[in-house]
Every structure is written in C-alpha cells, then in structure tokens.
C-alpha cells in the first residue's frame, strides 16, 4: 500500500515563510484559477510550491554529513569517534586502524541501512511525481503532464479510478449535479465511498470547452493537516461563494463511480493535507532501552574508574622508576618521553588515563545499538509474519509499525481499552426500539445471555459467544430486529402508527449514507455503522431509501392514506452534521406536502434537553426503555422531530448561511451555535437500541490476560449501564466480584443543581472523595481474601477524581481493583487517564483502540495498539502495533511479548557480560604490566572481538531464543508476570551478569597465566611469551563467552549451532589466516597458532579446563537455582519435559 507508506514519513520541512503568509492557521492563501497571467502577477508576491514531493531524508549531497551527524548523536558513537581521533596520537595503546575498524563497521552498517531505506523512498517519489494527469493549458485544451508540473490554480481533469494529484477544488463532474464519489483509503483507511459535491454555480462546466472563459479567485486557509475541514471562499463573476470540505478532493484519494471530474489545484506537493499529515510513527522508547542507557552510563563509569585506578598506580610506579633500588634502567626512565616521564609523573598519569580509555574502549559495547536494531527488526518481522495473528475476514496481518517496543509487550501491566470497535465488532445491529412509549423487538442480546449464563455455569465452560447462537437465521447485516407488530407492514395497525411512520422516516432520512443500487436491491455506504443499521432497518420495514441527490432524498414508502407503496421525495434543505461535541445530527427537509420538518437523532441526554413541552408525552416510558436497553448492552439513540414554519426557517437559514461562510478560526463554533438555534422544541418519537456484537474470542482473551495478571481498564463513551453489561459479556466483570460504582447523579447532587457553581463543585468534590474513601476502606478490609473488586466510574466523576488532589487516592484505588471501567469518557479524558495511570503505577501501559477518538490515548500510552477495523486507519496510523482483532492481543502480549522481552533482556545482559569478560582480562594483564596500558592481545584480536567472534551468536539469542513454546505461553499466562516484575532485566540480574563477566575474566586471566607461564610451553622446551599468553587467553575468552551463551540458550536450532560453534571456529580460522600475514602486519600473531599452539598439548588442555572453570560459577548458580529455588519459567519448562 503506497498510501500507508506515505503516511509514515517524517514531517515535511516547514513551509517557506512566503506560503504561510498569515502564519500557521492563517487564511491568506489566494488561488488564481485558470489564470496564468494573474498567477504570474501574484507570483511576484507569493510563490506556492510545486507539486513535486520529496519524502527522502537525505539528498545525494547531504547524505554523508547528515547521516553521520545522526550517527554521532549517540553517546557511545561519539566516544568511539573521540577515541579514534586520539588513537592517531602516540597515546594509542595499539594501532589506530584497529580502533577505527569497529567504528567504521558499525557506522557503515547503519549508514548503509539508512541509504537503502532512503533509496526506496526515492524510487517511490519518482514514481509518484511522474504520474500523468490532464491539465488545461493555454491552448485551451487538456493535455497530459506529469504530476510534478502541476501549479496552484491549474484546472485538471481526473478520470475514473485515478488518484487526485493534489488537493483539488471540485468544479464539476460527469454527473449533472456535480457530485462525485471518492475513496479515501490511503488517507484514513476507510473503504466506504464518500460523496463530494461541487458548488452549483460551477457544476455546469461539464466539458473541456467550458473552461475557456472560466476565471475565478479562491481565498482559503493556509496549508494545514486537518483532513476533514476546509474553509475558503470563491469569487466568481463578482459573487462570493463559501466553500466547504464537500468540495475538496484530497490528494491520494481516488475517484470512484464517476467518469471524470474537473478541479482546480489548491494545495500542491507538501502543502497538501495528506503530506501535512505525514509524520513518523510516534517515537517511543521502551523501559528496557531506557535502563540500557543507564547501564551504558554505568559502563562508562566503570571505564573511568578502571582507567583512573590504572592511572593512579601508573603514576606511582612511574615516579618510582627512578628511585634507588628500583631503577628500571632497561626502560631508560632518564630519557623517556612525556608519556612515561618519572619526573613529571602527574602528567604521565593523565596521558595514561587517556590511553586507558582507549584500551578499555571494548567495555563499551559499540555494536550493541546496531545489534539491537537488527534484532528488533527481525523480531518485528516475526510478528508481522505470524499466521496466527492474521485475520482471514479482513485480510489483515498484524503489523509492528515500530520495532522499538517489542520487548515492552512482555511487560504490559495495564491495558486501557476502548470498547466500540475494539472489544466489539463495530458492526451495528438494530435490535430493539421504543416508539411512542411502546417497546418493540424481541431478540435478546449477548450481554443478557452471558449474564444469564454466568449465574448458572462456570464461566470457563462458556462457549465462544460469537455468532449464530440465536434461533433466527440473520439474513441482513445490521438488522436483527424481530417483532411481528412492525414487520411486513403490520405497523400500520399499531395505535401510534403515525408516530411509527415518522420514526422510521427519521431513520430513513436523517443520515449521510449513500444508496448503492444494484439490480433491484439497495445497499448503503454509510460513514458510521450505526447509520447503516438505521437505514437498513428503515428499508426492511418498508421505508426504502434509494436515491440521494444534492437537493433531495427519495424513499419508497407506504402511504397510509392510499394504502400502497409510493415514491416520496424530500427536498433536502440543510444537514446539521454529527460531531462528537454535538452528539446529534439533524436534517431539515421539505416534504411533498410543502411541510418543513426537522428530523433529529442523537444521544438521549442531549435530545431530552431539547424537547418541547408537548413533545415530552412519552419521555418517561422512553427513558425507562432506554435504561433497559442500556442494561442489555445496547447503544441507544433518541429520535425526535419538529415542524418548522416558513418564516422561522427563513430567518434561521440566513443566519446559518452567514455562519457557514464565515472564514475564521471560530468557524466550527459559530456554525454549531447557529445549528443549535433550530434544534429545539423537539417532539420525541422514541429511541433505538443497536447492538454492537463482541468480537470473536474477546471473553477468552480477556480471561487469559487477567490470568496473566494484567489489569484491564475499559474506557468508553457509552453509558454506565451499557458499559457494565459489556463488561459482563466479555468477562471483565464477574458475578463474584464486588463492584464499586462511583457516579455523580445521586439525589443530593441534583438537589444542589440550583446553588452557585462553586458550592456545587465543592459538594461534588466532597462526594467523590467520600466515595473513594469508602471504596478504599472496603478494598483494604478485604485484602488477603479472594474477593476481587471492579471499579466503575463515569466521566463526570472521573473529571473530579482526576483533578483537585484526588487523583492519587483514586488511582491507588483503581490499581487495587482487578478491573476498571470508565464510561461516558471523552477522548481527552482517555488520554489523561492513560497518562495518570502510566505515571502513578510506573508500569507499562498499553492502550488499544480503533477510532480517531483513541489517538490521544494510543500516543500517550507506552504502547499503542491500533485495531485496523472498520473505523478507519487513524488509530492504526498513530499506533505502534496494529492488529485486526482484539483477540490477537493475547498472542501479541503473551507470546511475542514474552519472547521479545526475554530475548532483548538476555541479549543486553549478555552483551555487558561479554564485554566485561573481555575488558577485565585486559585490566588484569595491564595491572601486571606496571599499568603501562599494554594490551594483552594483538591489536586485531581486540577489534574483531565485538565485530566477528561474539556478534552473531548474541543476535541468535535476540532473534530466535525461546524459553517455552507459544502453546505453553498461552497455556500458562502467568509467565507474563516475569515481564511485569521485570525479573529478566532487574538490577540484581544485570549486575549479576556483570559480576559473572568479571569473575569469568578473573578466572581466565589467573588460570591462564598460572597454567602456561614460566615453565616450558611445549615438550621442545620453548616457553610462552606474551604472544602465546594473548592467544591462549583470547581462545579461552572466545570459548567461554560463546559457551556461556550456549548454556543460557534454551532453544537450539541449526542456526544457533551454526552461529555459536561457527564463531568459535572462525576464531581459529582467523588466527591461521592472520598468522600468514607478513610479520610487520600480524606482529605478535605471526604463525602463532600453527607454529606454537597446535602442537602444544598444554594449549589445548589449558583452554579446556579454563573454559569449564570460567563457566562453572554460572552453571552451578543456575543449577542451584533451578533445583532448589526455581523460577516460574524453570518449573514450566521442566513440567513440559516431564510430560513429554
């Protein structure tokens, strides 16, 4: 998907000052349409960018400096660069080139990776920039040109199934009324068609010739990233026309179901909304990585400490070189350079300090970052490739959008979940309705069933509650309504038949869906699944919506008077659109009888406030039904209408139009205010109950996650009752749990309603505080018993609980509860709750959601998981991981999370181990060489250590190691506790590994020197010099660290074998090959292996016992632990072998 790629990019460079004019959020853009001359004149003042896009990070010219700069922002790399620079001075303990090599390899590898990635981007840019589009030119005809040549103000013609080359203003289309359909898959992932409509005045420009005289001027907002808003005005023939998002065709969306459209280019290239939106996936760092930084600092400290100790001793020793009885004449202290001058021992010590930093540079694992990066990318590939996280129905595999957080998945402590579309399918089914105070609909909901079942049987034996469990065979998606009183035209016989008629009319008319007529049947493209369910229901009950034009909506409906089906057309006057702030939508129509009607549907609370005195006839019954529906886990909406007088409408319409054409930042607010003025004195018709089915496998998944000890919070905008019922349905709430409910609408508070605001606030605050305190005492009194608690809180109370000093006690309470449900919560509160939980618990939080309203939460949480479901891709775009269904979370966390966490933690620990094991042998040797910073090994041994002999096995650990199989991970979810408690990356463990490294180094050094030194090394009487000590010791180190890894690994495939034994073998190969280099290059390593080592039994015997001795401390610790103090994973591993 090219579109997705384009989203993932870095933010575009800030627009040049000239194009932003009035600054961000200004309204200064002027577009001269089809008017090259005026544009040229305008160009003198303002130049808009061309349509060419460049999404590459680097250019050929700046690649080297820029990528180098990126590289050297890492502390470790800077250190190595500094060391490399100093290494050209005489301070260097060994040759500069061997210091430089690891740095060059590491930096080179990273740069190569960058270059390849950027090259791919470049290719895609070239492809996109050279796509063809038809542009109107001076010759008064349309000709093809490349996208990159487009200019602001050009008129372009886009044909069916082509992408729009830039943000266009729709002028006209192949349809008479200037409508067209677009698919915005690449922008927001939504697959439904969206209807766009040109201004009426331009819709007549329907052929190529009509543009000869067409000139217009558009003033509009400056480039911004809001995909769903556009504010502008068109000046055409001296008249001003307001523009809206309805007329804007966005780049990267596609023309569908329309032969062609004409449009004016408004935003080009990086000014387009999609490019303005482009950004990197949020950059988050995992806990492990943050701790890793600390360890690196710790290693730096160790480095400095060792170097300082060495320098101090060196200073003292150097000073003593000249003293009586200790005059080391063979060093010529009287003629030494400043680095060794006994007369200036202080200075020499300082120089030695610098030298030591270089010598012990191998303590800092230079290849750690790149190794971890590679490992994580491979881990992500495994996540992406996991067939068990692939959703057949939507054809979507899991996607790790960032590889930074793999190991964080294994440490999740709290999950904050959205409800709609996340736990549920977000495919709505119309189940029940209440019309005129009478409840209709006999189906029962999942929540009701689950609740009933819960009482009878143990929840463990519950069958999957997915689909097809009710007796009816559901034939129509979105419709699950059975009531003989209404179906098959029987509604006519109901007492309130007029109300029923009006009710379904509202459902059939008050929406923004588009009918798709195929042969005889009609289906609908709707922006929200609720609407689709409503329109479908209306159709099934005989109010078939089949045509929508810009000005009208047509239905097939039953006429009460004539007694048969007729076509009725409603003139559509205004649509007052739905927004989450308004929580309602209305349309104003003129019927064939010339009646003016306003149809409104919306959240019950909002609608009930706006009822007229005589519109409240059924309010009590309806409220009662709404409560019932909510308890049954249904989403409810209230439906109402009102009649308007001509006069009233005319006055309001003028006001509304004025509001709509206002061009300023408060535009939306002004429009909302205007809309509110007509949405009043409504007459209540009834309410709907729509069921959102739980996704497949959700209760089982939640069970597993709860077993794993993960706390699950549901943050939903639903009503308390609905939320509680969904909670029961998905087993988040269980019968035996004690529910603590904190809510506001208790009687005392309604009494207070008339008091002044401050007093109310205080009183509410006091109440919430009391509730929290009570709950806390309840929880603490039952501590130790098996009672678990569930906390349910609504949005209003939450607002108080999270402010005014209550948040800590609230969060403590919440953390003590097994499950928490927050209902009636706004997107902003979702993010706020997430942040507070993260901050208070200091544990890893994971947010999962599917909609635009979850974006804040996903970005705030340590890990954001987006569900790539029906509600578009916005959540996915801002997430770190994308999965198709909630149930995959179980596998993502318990299997991949567990593995990745263990792998990364072990890998980092091992990295430090191997570097310390190596570094300390150097230290011990130096300590026995008068701290003169003489390396124990040949230069190239040292530089190859991290790069060649120990780099690949540790990657095998990071990529492939598995302590237990995926089946066991899922069978014993409590394994996840290891991650939550961070036992694999706790400080004791890290320090333990470091200590192990030091012990290994000490054993290797002392055993080697004692074993092979002084006496004859071989039977021919020759003795071992420093070159043989170096080779033997290095052999032991390579063996020991690789065998240590082999001991640690719990999963051996041929890859591990190849890499581990291959690395060791490679050391010998290296030694042989290097030994054949001329002595001036190989120096002490010249023929050392073939000539001296191979034929010496002492060499082989020593390496054997030294390696075993070096491994013995760890191994005996490990065996003691597993035999007598096993950790959970040990037992499970053992249990498994016991079985098999």
């Amino acid at each position, binding site marked *: 998907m090219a579109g997705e790629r384009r989203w993932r990019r870095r933010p575009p460079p800030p627009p040049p000052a000239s194009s932003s004019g009035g600054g961000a959020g200004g309204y200064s853009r002027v577009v001269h349409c089809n008017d090259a001359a005026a544009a040229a004149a305008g160009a003198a003042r303002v130049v808009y960018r061309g349509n060419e896009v460049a999404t590459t990070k680097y250019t050929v010219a700046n690649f080297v400096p820029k990528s180098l700069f990126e590289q050297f922002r890492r502390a470790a790399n800077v250190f190595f660069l500094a060391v490399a620079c100093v290494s050209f001075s005489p301070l260097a303990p060994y040759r500069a080139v061997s210091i430089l090599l690891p740095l060059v390899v590491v930096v080179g590898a990273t740069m190569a990776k960058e270059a390849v990635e950027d090259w791919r981007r470049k290719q895609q840019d070239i492809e996109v920039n050279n796509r063809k589009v038809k542009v109107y030119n001076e010759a008064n005809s349309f000709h093809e040109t490349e996208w990159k040549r487009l200019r602001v103000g050009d008129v372009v013609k886009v044909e069916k199934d082509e992408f729009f080359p830039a943000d266009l203003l729709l002028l006209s289309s192949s349809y008479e009324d200037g409508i067209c359909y677009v698919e915005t898959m690449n922008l927001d992932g939504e*697959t*439904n068609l969206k209807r766009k409509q040109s201004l009426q005045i331009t819709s007549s420009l329907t052929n190529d010739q009509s543009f000869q005289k067409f000139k217009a001027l558009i003033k509009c907002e400056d480039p911004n990233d809001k995909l769903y808003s556009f504010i502008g005005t068109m000046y055409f023939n001296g008249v001003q026309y307001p523009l809206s998002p309805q007329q804007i065709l966005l780049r990267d969306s596609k023309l569908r179901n329309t032969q062609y459209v004409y449009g004016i280019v408004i935003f080009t290239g990086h000014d387009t909304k999609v490019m303005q939106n482009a950004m990197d996936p949020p950059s988050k760092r995992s806990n492990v990585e943050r701790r890793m930084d600390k360890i690196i600092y710790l290693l730096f400290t160790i480095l400095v400490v060792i170097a300082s100790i060495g320098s101090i001793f060196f200073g003292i020793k150097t000073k003593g070189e000249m003293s009586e009885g200790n*005059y080391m004449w*063979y*060093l*010529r202290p009287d*003629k*030494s*350079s400043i680095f*060794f001058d006994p007369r200036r021992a202080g200075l020499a010590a300082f120089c030695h300090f610098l030298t030591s930093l270089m010598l012990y540079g191998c303590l800092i694992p230079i290849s750690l970052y790149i190794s971890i990066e590679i490992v994580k990318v491979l881990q992500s*590939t495994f996540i992406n490739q*996991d*067939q068990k996280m692939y959703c057949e*129905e*939507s*054809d979507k595999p899991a996607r790790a959008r960032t590889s930074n957080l793999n190991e964080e998945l294994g440490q999740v402590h709290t999950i904050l979940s959205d409800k709609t579309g996340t736990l549920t*399918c977000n495919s709505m089914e119309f189940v029940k309705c209440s019309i005129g105070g009478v409840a209709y609909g006999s189906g029962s909901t999942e929540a009701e069933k689950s609740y009933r079942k819960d009482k009878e049987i143990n929840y463990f034996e519950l069958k999957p509650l997915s689909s097809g469990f009710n007796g009816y065979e*559901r*034939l*129509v*998606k*979105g419709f699950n309504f059975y009531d003989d009183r209404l179906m098959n035209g029987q509604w006519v016989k109901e007492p309130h038949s007029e109300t029923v008629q009006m009710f379904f009319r509202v459902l059939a008319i008050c929406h923004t869906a588009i009918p798709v007529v195929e042969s005889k049947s009609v289906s609908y493209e709707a922006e929200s699944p609720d609407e689709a369910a409503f329109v479908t229901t209306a159709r099934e009950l005989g109010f078939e919506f089949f045509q929508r034009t810009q000005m009208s909506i047509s239905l097939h409906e039953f006429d009460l008077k004539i007694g048969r089906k007729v076509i009725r057309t409603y003139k559509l006057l205004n649509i007052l659109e739905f927004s989450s702030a308004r929580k309602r939508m209305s349309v104003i129509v003129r019927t064939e009888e010339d009646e003016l009607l306003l149809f409104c549907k919306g959240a019950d609370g909002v609608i009930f406030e706006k009822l007229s005195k005589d519109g409240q006839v059924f309010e009590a019954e309806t409220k009662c039904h709404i409560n019932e529906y909510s308890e049954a886990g249904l989403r409810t909406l209230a439906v109402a209408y009102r009649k308007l007088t001509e006069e009233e409408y005319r006055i309001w319409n003028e006001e509304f139009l004025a509001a709509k054409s206002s061009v300023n930042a408060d535009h939306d607010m002004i429009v909302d205010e205007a809309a509110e003025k007509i949405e009043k004195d409504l007459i209540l018709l009834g309410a709907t109950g729509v069921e959102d089915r739980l*996704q*497949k496998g959700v209760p089982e998944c939640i*069970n597993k996650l*709860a077993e794993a000890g993960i706390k699950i919070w549901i943050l939903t905008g639903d009503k308390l009752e609905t939320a509680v019922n969904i909670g029961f349905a998905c087993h988040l709430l269980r019968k035996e749990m004690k529910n603590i409910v904190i809510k506001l609408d208790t009687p005392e508070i309604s009494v207070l309603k008339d008091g002044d605001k401050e007093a109310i606030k205080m009183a509410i605050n006091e109440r919430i505080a009391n509730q929290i305190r009570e709950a806390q005492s309840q929880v603490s009194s039952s501590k130790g018993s098996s009672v678990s608690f569930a906390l349910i809180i609504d949005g209003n109370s939450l607002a108080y609980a999270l402010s005014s000093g209550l948040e800590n006690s609230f969060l403590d309470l919440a953390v003590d509860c097994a499950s928490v449900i927050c209902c009636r919560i706004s997107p902003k509160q979702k993010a706020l709750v997430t942040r507070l939980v993260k901050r208070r618990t200091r544990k890893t939080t994971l947010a999962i959601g599917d909609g635009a309203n979850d974006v804040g939460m996903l970005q705030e949480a340590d890990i954001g998981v987006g569900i790539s479901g029906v509600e578009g891709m916005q959540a996915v775009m801002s997430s770190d991981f994308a999965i198709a*269904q909630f149930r995959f979370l179980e596998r993502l966390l318990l299997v991949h999370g567990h593995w990745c966490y263990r792998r990364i933690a072990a890998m980092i620990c091992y990295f430090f181990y191997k570097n310390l094991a190596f570094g300390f042998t150097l230290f011990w*040797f130096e300590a026995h060489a*008068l701290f003169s910073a003489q390396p124990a090994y040949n230069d190239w041994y040292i530089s190859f250590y991290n790069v060649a002999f120990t780099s690949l096995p540790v990657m095998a650990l990071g990529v492939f190691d598995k302590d237990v199989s995926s089946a066991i991970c899922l069978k014993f979810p*409590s394994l996840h*506790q290891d991650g939550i408690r961070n036992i694999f990356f706790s400080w004791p463990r890290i320090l333990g590994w470091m200590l192990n490294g030091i012990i290994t180094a000490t054993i290797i050094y002392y055993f080697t020197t004692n*074993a092979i*030194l*002084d*006496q*004859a090394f071989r*039977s021919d*009487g*020759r*003795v071992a010099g*420093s070159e043989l*000590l170096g080779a033997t010791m290095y052999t032991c180190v390579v063996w020991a660290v690789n065998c240590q890894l082999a001991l640690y690994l*719990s*999963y*051996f495939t041929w890859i591990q074998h190849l890499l581990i034994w291959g690395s060791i073998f490679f050391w010998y190969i290296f030694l042989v090959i290097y030994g054949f280099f001329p*002595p*001036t290059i190989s120096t002490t390593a010249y*023929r050392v292996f073939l*000539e001296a080592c191979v034929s010496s*039994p002492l060499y082989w015997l020593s390496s054997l*016992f030294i390696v*075993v001795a070096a491994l*013995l401390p760890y191994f*005996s610790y490990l065996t003691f632990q*597993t*035999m007598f103090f096993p950790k*959970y994973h040990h*037992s*499970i*591993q053992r249990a498994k072998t016991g079985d098999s």
Partner: protein
Amino acid sequence: MNPSSSSTPRRSDGATRDSSNPRKNSNKPKYSRFTQQELPACKPILTPAWVITAYMLVAVVFIPIGLASLSASESVVEIVDRYDVECIPEHLRVDKVAYIRSSETKKTCTRSLSVPKHMKAPVYVYYQLDNFYQNHRRYVKSRSDKQLRYKSKEHDTSSCDPESTTSNGSPITPCGLIAWSLFNDTYKFSLAAKALDVNKKNIAWKSDKDHKFGRDVYPKNFQSGGLIGGGKLDASIPLSEQEDLIVWMRTAALPTFRKLYGKIEADLEPDDKLTVVIENNYNTYSFGGKKKLVLSTTSWIGGKNDFVGIAYLTIGGLCLFLAIGFAVLHLLCPRNLGDPSYLSWNRDAAARPTKL
C-alpha cells in the same frame, strides 16, 4: 468480522484494492517454519538428571586428565638455582649496583648443582628473571620489526626511542630498548671436570629466525652509545643467527619469566655434581630483580607445572562432589517436576495475580 453476514456488498473485498488484481495477493503471511518460529530444535532443560549427568561427565573427564597431567608434571625434573646474590663476593654485597656497574670487579662465579633424579636429554637450560617488566608498553613498543627484517629499512628506527640512533645520528641495528637490554649472563657447565656442551642452536622459534630477523641484517652501532645496556652482539653474524637475541626479543608476558638459554644434550644421572661457571654481567640489582638458573627436562605437557593437573583434579572433584550432592538431595527430597507449590510467587500469596 462476522462470517454469517455477507449479504451487503460492503466493499470489503476486490473493490478496495486496485481493481486490476482483485483478491490475488492476499496479505496472509506465507507459512514457513522459519517465519513461524517453528524450526526443529532441541531444548536443553536443567532437569536434575541432566544436571547430575553434566557434573558427572565433567568429573569423569577431568579427573583422569588431571592425574595424567600431574604425573607428566611430576616426571619432569627441574633444578632451580638463584645466583644473583650468591655470585657477589660477600664484602661487595652492600652495594650490589656498584659491583655490577664497575668494570673492575670480577664477574665470574662458580656454582655447583646436584642432580636430584635422572634427567633425560635434552636438558633445557633457562635463565629466569624476576621483577623485570618486559611487558611494559614503553619497552614492548621499542623495536623496529622492519629494521630487524630488511636490510634496506636500516633507518626505520622511529619507534625505537630512546635507543634509536647513536649520538651522531647513525641508526643502531638492532634498535630499541629490548635489544639494548639484551641479557648477557653466560653459563658454562661441566660435569666431573668434563665440560658439558650447551647447544645454543635452535632455541628460537623457527618463524622468528626465518621471517622476523633478516639473514642479511647485521648488528651495527650496537651498544656503542654512552650507556651500555645489556649484551653485545657479534657484528659479523646476521640477526637471524643471533638466537639469544631472537629469544630475548620475544617479550615475556609477566615480570617473572624464563627464557631458553640452550640445551644440554646429555643425560644427567642422579647425584651428579654439575659445576656452572657464570659470567654475572646482567644488572638486575638496580631494580631488585632476581636471577635464577633453571635446568629442566620436559614431558609431553611441557615443563614442570602442577597447576594444570591440580586444577583439573579440583574442578573434577568439585563436579563430582556437586553431582553426588545433587543426587543425594534429589533422592532425599524428590520434587515433583513443575510442582507449582514450589513457585516463588505461590509462597508469596499477595503477589499472585487475581484468582479467577
């Protein structure tokens, strides 16, 4: 999401993708054992049996090796004689440095060694220095490999400071501190008044002779400066034949080291009295170093060193002990594998995740 509902033509299939290739390229990840992380593998797990076997195995392998090495080491006969103090006439021992520096004093000294056991030829003769830092960085670096190897690189002495050139600027061959401080004590052996030949051929590594020291490079300006360090070299013999120098220039790893002096290619019988005439020239008195003369035979394991054998025996014994210990403990209190009641957090009830 809901398999049973398929009547609405919601564009969930072909239409969403490019109409040119409908449904052809499913996004389903391809199956391979690699990507699904299901490669055949062995999963070693520390079961008691496995642990005990591992320890036993180590013990079984190590103890015999230890015994063999120890006996090899025991079979080596070694005579060590420290002579640095003894070789100074008693009245001069007050100021040893002055004694060694003085050109007047007589440096020859005679030592007598008795052979404890039969020593089979060849008997290797070593000198052992103590507190001599041949591994000091300044010392190690002070040589020129190129100069030693190639005649044409005679002037390549930059790394040899402060012993690179004579006071008049002509290069010293071989240059550097290592060569300059060449050990120059000599030993002459005689057994029952009969001189014992010390074979000084073939004491250096072959690769050194062939490839590190040039056949056409002759000592030049050596030890001709103001301060004489150690031994002098015969300027008529090429460096590749100067085996004492070659041995000396393979720097030792630690401040106490032995270097091969030569070989006595005759068996020495028990209670043989060896007379050694030592030219005690080398100054270790300035820095308090010791000098020892070592005669040693070798076995397959090399010289006399019990460390390897003892280490093998210790490790083997330790492993045996651990194996037995574990076995006994395992028999005394056998534990059900994977018994959850042993789990750390089951003992710690509060930490247990919510009981479901």
